[in-house]
């Protein structure tokens, strides 16, 4: 699979998790906390694999990588803040909503910009990167790494 397709699938998966979160009743604090943890895990693995494999390889084809990396840093800072809130509180709800909006803005720039730049590298290179990304994601998921 091409690296860009794999990353776009991750984007869709995390968007689905946000939808699930929004459908969970406000008074179901533990489900909300669980879902948020899953979202954060998903984002952590995605961002770490992207930074270790995808961004360094694409940097020569795209001038948007600095922005993409600073977007990750911003996301991590906000996630760290939201983690401090009580999952039943309105601050938590507002915080998760902001995390979702940051993710959507990031996805918009990445899919509309970085991925198009990456296409210049050609199918072979992107498929090779895809395999490498999948491997890295699996290793990260196994180790249960949490970057934020």
């Amino acid at each position, binding site marked *: 699979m091409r690296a860009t397709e794999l990353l776009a699938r991750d984007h869709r998966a995390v*968007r689905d998790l946000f939808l699930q979160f929004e459908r969970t009743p406000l008074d179901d604090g533990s489900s909300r906390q669980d879902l948020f943890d899953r979202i954060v895990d998903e984002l952590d693995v995605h961002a770490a694999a992207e930074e270790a494999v995808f961004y360094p390889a694409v940097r020569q084809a795209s*001038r*948007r990588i600095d*922005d993409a990396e*600073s*977007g990750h*840093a*911003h996301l991590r*800072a906000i996630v760290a803040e939201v983690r401090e809130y009580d999952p039943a509180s309105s601050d938590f709800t507002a915080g998760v*909503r*902001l995390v979702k*909006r*940051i993710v*959507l*803005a990031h*996805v*918009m*720039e990445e899919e*509309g*910009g970085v991925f198009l730049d990456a296409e210049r590298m050609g199918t072979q290179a992107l498929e090779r990167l895809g395999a490498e990304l999948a491997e890295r994601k699996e290793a990260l998921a196994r180790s249960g790494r949490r970057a934020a």
Partner: protein
Amino acid sequence: MAMNPFDERGIPLERQIRTWKQVALPPYRKQDVDAFTRCRVILMNGIEMEAAIFSHAFARACDDPDLKGQLAALRRVEHQQQNTINWLNPADQSVLETTIGYEQVAIELTAYLARTEPDEYVKQAFEFGLLEDFDHLYRYAQLLDLIHGKDPNEILQGRTDVLPARPTQDHHNDPFLRVLNHYEKTRAHPRSKVNVLTLMAGEQQTMNFYKTVGNFYGSPEARQLYAEISNVEEEHVTQYESLMDPTETWLEKWVMHEFTEVANYYTCMETEIDPRIKKVWEIFLSCELEHLRIAGEMLRRLQGKEPQEICGTELPTPATFESNREYVTRVIKEQSALRLVSGGKWASLDELPEDWASFAYQRVVHEHGAPSESVVRLRMEAAGVELVRAEDPELEAAAGEHRVSSLDPDPAANTAPATYTALEPVRREAEPGDHGGEPRLVNPLDDPTWPGSAETPGRKPGRKGKER
């Protein structure tokens, strides 16, 4: 007059919507409006048009309903702003009179921006475009005289010369040549970003205006001239938008748009002499300060960047309308013979290769002549001379010579001569409405099914003129 827009407070968004009566304000009187007030009205309509076009494009790329909603809320206000501004132009101002105003904006705005542009490459791009708009004014001025019998100075009020520059028939380029090299967003001066966006917005509205109103005249010469010049304006939009860094994020572009709007309204407010219209600029500036705050807040929350990183804190003054005569004259003298070559560069006419890409394009579009040349010839036939207006009599006297000497080596067939005495009288035997058996519409591809073609079924081929 430096102002930090981030220190100012605007009108809260919920108070920015106005009633229809407040939206459709009475227009200015064309008989006594100041030429530069009209220029500000025309420019700010273009700035708001770009705001709407950009915001819709942004919304279509955006998957965040909250952000889409915010964009929609600001668009609603800016829609009203644009209505108010554009409709300050009165109903009795003819399309051609307004067109002269549009070209005055294009010339004086481009010249001011070029003069104050810190980036040498961007400056060169502006100067190149300047000479083209300058020549458009001269072409439309012939038409204004022919159709309305008016002097262009009724509109220009002597602030802008009417002279040929790089001839319009040479403005048609291979599309790839119009793509220039962009600035880099992290290195460019904020003023360059504002200048480029302002000029692109102005040219875009000019293109849209000509494309929309060129059919308001029945005369084929007028229709063709509008078609030709609106096509050049399309090239100008291509040229100026290609100067922008494509890696600016949507949110950064949004901030830049709002900052540019603030800068333009602020300049209008500071320089306006009509007290009623000054109030309009002041109110809209207050609206835009809030829009800038909202866009900046979104950039901060969603991308973790400060808006000042994108546009700085010092407000430039792009919408400054003042005399640029000396500057424009110098650019005409030095750069009329410049042409676009590949790689976003320029070369002199005598350096162009024989297979210069734009020759091929010009051969196609000019196969039946260049309307921008026909209109000069028509004026010569009607009044004996072409119409020129310049403060410097020497410049006025040398106009025709200059016009012809800056032509491509491969000019269109109907190029008007340098002096009217060289013009052979044209005998017109046909009655009005009779095309002497020639099809009125000519298909450049010689397709027999093209409307108006002699072979089109159901039409009478080769109709002869009526006998008296």
